[in-house]
């Protein structure tokens, strides 16, 4: 009968090996995650720098030529990467959190670039006599479920109308330029709110409501289709 108490011991080596392995896994993951984040940050920064240079170049070109040449349409001049940058920043927000100081810094820079793009687009439209369809959107990440829904609508809208220029601004960002933009566009302080072609819309608006409010969108879609058709015929020829 083996029921006696033999002196049992704990082999601490197993606990230590497991601890070292767990720390190694955790450490590697932290390192990989940090490297990936740094890489993303630098990618976003380089896109922003490119946009800044593009904008500056456009501004300079614009000043030099003044009203002399209205040969180019808005889209080829203004930075096309802005929309792409927006997607990236939204993703970074999801990864690092909305309170991350680096993300906030990038968002401020992004907001300023958007405002400059918006102004340039407007000036170009005035001088060259075309009316760009722009949508300025103010939102908040803080307890605003309508803003989340509006975000989905605008993403879908951008996919449907690639020529539509959507400028999104986080109204909670501590950036005086956003406040000034709200003032000059007469946007209310509430979120979500949108300024489309000078008209103000507050609260959640569905895709259908926006399409009805902005007849220019239908025209835009027709133009887009015509361009696509032209390209298609070229290919088939």
């Amino acid at each position, binding site marked *: 009968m083996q*029921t006696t108490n033999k002196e049992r011991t704990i082999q601490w080596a*197993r606990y230590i090996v*497991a601890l070292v392995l767990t720390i190694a896994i955790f450490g590697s993951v*932290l390192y990989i995650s940090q490297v990936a984040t740094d890489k*993303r940050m630098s990618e976003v920064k380089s896109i922003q720098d490119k946009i800044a240079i593009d904008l500056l170049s456009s501004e300079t070109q614009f000043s030099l030529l003044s009203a002399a040449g209205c040969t180019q349409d808005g889209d080829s001049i203004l930075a096309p990467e802005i929309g792409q940058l927006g997607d990236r920043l939204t993703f970074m927000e999801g990864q690092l959190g909305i309170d991350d100081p680096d993300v906030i810094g990038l968002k401020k820079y992004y907001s300023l670039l958007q405002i400059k793009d918006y102004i340039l687009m407007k000036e170009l439209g005035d001088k060259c006599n075309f009316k760009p369809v722009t949508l300025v959107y103010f939102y908040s990440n803080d307890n605003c479920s309508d803003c989340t*829904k509006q975000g989905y609508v605008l993403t*879908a809208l951008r996919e449907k109308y690639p020529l539509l220029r959507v400028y999104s601004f986080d109204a909670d960002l501590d950036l005086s330029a956003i406040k000034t933009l709200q003032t000059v566009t007469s946007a209310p302080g509430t979120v979500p709110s949108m300024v489309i072609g000078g008209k103000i819309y507050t609260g959640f608006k569905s895709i259908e409501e926006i399409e009805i409010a902005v007849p220019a969108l239908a025209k835009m879609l027709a133009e887009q289709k015509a361009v696509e058709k032209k390209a298609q015929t070229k290919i088939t020829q």
Partner: protein
Amino acid sequence: MFTNIKDILLYVSLFGGLYFQVFLLVSYFLWDGVTEFGEADEPTETLFEPTVAVMVPCFNEEKTVVGTVESLLALDYPREKLKIIVIDDGSTDNTWNEVQKYVGNISVVLLQKKNEGSKFAAMNYGLRYIKSHMADVGIVGCLDADSAVHHTALRESLKEFTKPGVMAVVPSMVIDHPQTFMQYMQKVEYELATYAKQAFSRLNTLYIAPGPFTMMRRQVFDVLGEYNEAHHVEDMEIALRMQLQGMRLSHAVNSLVYTKGPRTWPALLKQRVRWTFGFIMNVWDYRKKVFFNDKLGHVGVTIPILFAMIWLLVVMIPFMLIGLITPIIHIVQRISVTGQIIPKIQTDVFFINTNVFSIISLITIVIFFVTIFIGRKKLLRQKMFSIDLFTVIVYPFFAAWWTGQSAYNAVRGKKKSWR
């Protein structure tokens, strides 16, 4: 502040969960084949063939009891050395009539008693019978009347007894012909449990002697006495008493027991709340003797770790629910406002999720699968891939439910007893 507390809890629980998984893997793979006392942990060549008594306590098991007894009679073992003691625990159905067919069978003893509300009383009734009528019985076991054994289960179990110092042998449990989602989920869970049992066995920290077909040397009861009520998990409490006495429990991988498992969620919930509540209460009852008692070997460390993990899981439940509900709300919102069922998928590498929480969760899931495969393929020699593996996606939420409910009951119960 809230975000910080949430993050700290998330990381602590992730680290704790990962550490425990790694620790079990280390214990499983870095096992050197010797006991904690340095003896080679091998079965001896000599055939161990004692007289074995298997108690079958049953309460209203008219549909399954015959199948259970038949599986025992089909065991590959000399008939004269096998005693099956059917204990009808005051059934109100046809159980007693069903077992009358075994009257006259030299291997079967039929006993009937008044129901006292818990299985332990029926088993003690059987133990007393063995003590007074069966002096030659060397090994005592039990088999729930909803389970059945493989015909080699006893031989495999007895082989394990020839390893140094083994006083009790626990079997591998398999869900028999699963039919419902809940049963498929339990099938995968039991395969994982087979691996865990093996890892615990190698550490000599088995802390449950499951009702279905755990075999014990008669001396266990001579030294420890009978089963206790033990918050309705007498099989755990007796294992803890064995560990405190320095008695070794071992896992016989090839001793297979087939059980049905609850078919529905309410039935499974009831069973698991009983088990988890019982675990919490028994560990609490024995905390002073067990926690970090180095004389108990690894038991003194693993039991408090398991106990802490239950509470960590309880704390995590609200976050798990938020994590489950938030994406569902977002998907519903997106579909309702855009009509797009599948969103545009970003293919750029930029959008690969490298959040620490996501990567560690992924690693945890991978280890989870590896351990299921060890149980399924290596130990139970089953097919590696099958559709039931998908049940692991929802398993944590069900487990969180019964753990939360058990913890709530335990805290409430404790308050009552303190008054």
